[in-house]
């Protein structure tokens, strides 16, 4: 399949290349070749993290012509990493002045995951990878056509399609045991947008009406029959001989978006926006299971069940905003704005389950048992934000901006009774106010640039335990370069402190990271680069253990250190680019990542050349479940005209 796709793309590239020869002026670039891979260690984790596979690759492809035809003023086609993946894209851009602009985009990503240790309860038995895996293709396609009949009105129409499909595995807890299921998923979302932009001098904006639809089909089936490791329950060993579930979902979402800007005075703008969407998702499920199962909720054993589910969920959301921006003095801008949002989520499901051949734990009263659940749930969320800002952008070499905002959140959660396992904390009304002050300043004069910013958030209440009651963020930047850019130095430092200290909340998270980097080009043909980064974070949360109710503090650390270096040599017609890096994390999940990248190009003729690439990634972790050492070698032919 992939090989077939490779040839399709190659044929397409050649077709585009040949078709553009009709144009007198055309700029063409293509670099295509073959990538070899050599992976030792855990190939699943290599694919999860990197996933560059062996095969034909169009590394880059670009065609451009500015030549006017009767139909177009210009045409540009760009493509990257077509073929062996893992991420590919194609973009087409064309148009004609005063007539239209057409943009088409296509992207494809390989989505693979097979983690050895994460979320894997069978790790202690030496079973890797974990039971949740997927190997899917995600593709996205967009086309946008803008009509330009006049400068005042610009109608547009757009279409997007997203697809996520492929196999996977997951787990299912049923009747006293957990079972591994094979999964086949096909999700397709389409979106149609129609609207117009308008520009009536001091008043301009846009109106968009869209329709989105998601269709999802999922089929699950038992991967391995029998008992999956659970111990006997009341003398019965749970097992499954068959589990099949098929689900489908159809969600429609019409949406409206309006934006308008009015230059009400010479130096004053009034900007307003309104968005609304109403999503309605209808789902249906059918499930059949056979085997030996036990249910403490029913107080019975049963030999199987048939279940059907009909569901409907809605999301109705609207938001509106208005703000005014004004230039009071030649160097002073002010802004005041208000935003309000309302989200209403409701859901209802009718779940009809027939338990087959059920008997009590005492072994009597054998019968099929039907259970019907009608569930209703809702969540309402209102947000109101009032903000004001002041900006002085050009006080000689200085610039300042300061803003303040007050955000009010009102959340009402009303779950179905079936969702509540332990009373409390799953429903109710929650109000939260967040006050924010944000300030930053910068200075830039010839060789030096420095900047600093601080953002302070203060909340009266946490809705989730990990919500902050105070959050402080600080950032510092500085850079220096010599007059001829022979040397450039840069520094970025960031610090974030998050805390929830209400009622013994006991949650806090601190992050501190900084990077210093230097670039030097002592001669025209040589450029060297080095950087050093610290990426640290620490969070602490008080946890009540469910089995003992003992409260203890859990911590999560990332203690990362990065060292990077690179050298670029340009000795026409040969160039060399070499980069090395090492990231070492001594935090909760200790590991190290070493990356080598080398690329050399030899342009043996004006329009022709070859390039060679070598990439190596070595991942080591402690304890060692998913280590790998992966080399990729590529040889590519280059053509430029």
């Amino acid at each position, binding site marked *: 399949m992939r090989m077939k796709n490779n040839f399709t793309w190659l044929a397409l590239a050649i077709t585009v290349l040949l078709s553009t020869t009709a144009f*007198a002026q055309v700029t063409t670039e293509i670099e295509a070749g073959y990538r070899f891979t050599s992976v030792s260690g855990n190939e699943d984790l290599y694919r999860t993290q990197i996933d560059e596979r062996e095969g034909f690759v169009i590394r880059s492809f670009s065609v451009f012509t500015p030549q006017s035809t009767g139909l177009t*003023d210009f045409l540009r086609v760009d493509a*990257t990493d077509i073929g062996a993946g*893992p*991420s590919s*894209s194609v*973009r087409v851009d064309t*148009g004609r*002045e005063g007539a239209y602009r057409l943009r088409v985009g296509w992207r494809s*990503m390989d989505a693979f995951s097979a*983690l050895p240790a*994460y*979320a894997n309860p069978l790790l202690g038995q030496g079973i890797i990878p974990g039971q949740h895996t997927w190997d899917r293709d995600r593709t996205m396609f967009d086309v946008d056509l803008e009509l330009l009949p006049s400068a005042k009105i610009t109608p547009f129409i757009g279409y997007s399609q997203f697809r996520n499909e492929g196999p996977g595995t997951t787990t299912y807890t049923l009747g006293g045991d957990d079972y591994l299921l094979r999964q086949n998923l096909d*999700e397709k979302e389409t979106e149609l947008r129609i609207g117009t932009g308008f520009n009536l001098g001091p008043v*301009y904006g846009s109106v968009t009406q*869209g329709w989105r639809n998601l269709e999802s089909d999922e089929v699950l089936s038992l991967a391995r029959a029998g008992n999956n490791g659970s111990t006997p329950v009341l003398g019965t060993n749970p097992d499954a001989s068959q589990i099949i579930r098929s689900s489908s979902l159809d*969600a429609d979402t019409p*949406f409206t*978006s309006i934006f308008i*800007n009015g230059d009400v005075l010479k130096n004053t703008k009034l*900007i307003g926006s309104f968005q609304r969407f109403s999503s309605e998702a209808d*789902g249906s499920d059918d499930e059949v299971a056979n085997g030996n199962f036990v249910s403490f909720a029913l107080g019975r054993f049963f030999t199987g069940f048939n279940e059907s589910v009909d569901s409907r*969920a*809605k*999301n109705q959301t609207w938001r509106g905003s208005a703000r005014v921006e004004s230039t009071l*003095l030649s160097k002073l801008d002010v*802004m005041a704005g208000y935003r309000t949002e309302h989200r209403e*989520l409701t859901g209802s499901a009718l779940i009809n389950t027939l338990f087959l051949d059920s008997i009590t734990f005492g072994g009597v009263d054998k019968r099929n048992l039907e259970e019907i659940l009608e569930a209703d*749930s809702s969540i309402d*969320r209102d947000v109101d934000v009032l903000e004001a800002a002041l900006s002085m*952008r*050009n*006080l*000689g070499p200085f610039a300042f901006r300061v803003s303040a905002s007050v955000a009010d959140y009102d959340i009402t*959660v009303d*779950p*179905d009774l*079936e969702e509540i*396992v*332990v009373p*409390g904390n799953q429903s109710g009304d929650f109000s939260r106010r967040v006050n924010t002050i944000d300030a930053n*300043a910068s*200075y*830039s004069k010839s060789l030096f640039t420095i900047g*600093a910013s601080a953002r302070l958030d203060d909340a009266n209440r946490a*809705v*989730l*335990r990990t919500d902050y009651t105070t959050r402080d963020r*600080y950032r510092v930047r500085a850079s220096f370069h010599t007059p001829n850019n022979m040397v450039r130095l*840069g520094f970025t*430092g960031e610090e974030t402190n998050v805390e929830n200290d209400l009622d013994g909340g006991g*949650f806090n998270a601190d992050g501190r990271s*900084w990077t*210093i980097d230097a670039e030097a080009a002592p001669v025209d043909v040589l450029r060297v680069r080095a950087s050093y*980064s610290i990426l640290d974070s620490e*969070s602490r949360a008080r*946890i*009540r253990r*469910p089995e003992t109710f003992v409260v203890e503090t859990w911590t999560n650390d990332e203690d990362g250190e990065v060292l990077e270096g690179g050298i670029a040599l340009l000795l026409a017609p040969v160039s060399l680019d070499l980069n090395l890096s090492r990231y070492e994390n001594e935090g909760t999940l200790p590991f190290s990542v070493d*990356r080598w990248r080398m690329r050399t190009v030899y342009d043996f003729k004006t329009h022709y050349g070859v390039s060679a690439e070598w990439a190596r990634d070595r991942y080591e972790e402690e304890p060692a479940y998913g280590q790998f050492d992966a080399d990729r070698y590529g040889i590519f032919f280059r053509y430029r005209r």
Partner: protein
Amino acid sequence: MSIRQTAIGGIVLLLFIGLSPGSLFAQEQQQPAAESSGMTCGDCHEQAKDFVANPHARGHVESGTVPRTVCESCHGDGTAHMEAGGDTSLIKVPRGFDGAENTCASCHGKTTERRSHRMGAHANQPAVNCLSCHAIHKPAQTLHLVARPEPALCASCHGTQASSFRNKPYTHRLGGSSMGCTSCHDPHARPGRENVRTTASGETVCLNCHGEKRGPYVFQHGGLAAAENDCATCHDPHGSANPNQLRRATVAQVCLECHSPLTSETLGSQPPSFHNLRLPRYQNCTTCHVAVHGSNRSPQLLK
């Protein structure tokens, strides 16, 4: 000195110096306009010939030549410059803040519901302006005429995020043109949440690629629907040391930080007592609660 102290000290110091008398009301300089003549810029400037592929020349290229009016739309009337044999003092060369403000913004200064020419995170100022990121004559790539391709361009100021993307094991794949910093961030938008793009219907930008997680679901994951940070409550979009770009190293920690209410004030259920965290099965919540993003069929998100 900590980053916090440096940041606060830096703001105060720069404010003090910048607001000193004379800074606030300094006048901007205007370039005088010149008369036109019949020569083309490409007669002397090789880069004017290269401009044929530039978006600014779109629709104006005549027989493979960029007409003089295209250059003059930014550089002003070049007649005097030409007649003086190329005297550089007689041609306008937009640079820095003034160049960006008076030249680029005269066409590209539109304000939208999220973008703001005046209040944006990267609004024109001496430290960062249009010409810090865009190279009009020698762009690294024609798309948006950026001076360096993403993410290297953004990395010149946002070094820690770039380092995280380059080095952490679980990240979005940046590079090429399939994804970059600007896939999620609008560099011309206002700071904070306004700087993060949305879907066409105004939802969190993550749903542009992960539309299947949008719902709505009958049984919402309450925190997900109610939370301030949406997906970023659990996931770190800039790369993570943890699988699935999660913010915590173990599944139990991801879940129990919210699902361990110590008071009645916060939203989040307490797992029942049979969830014995000493057993591997219960340390890995998603073994049973697979539908963590929401479910239409299981109140406890079991399927």
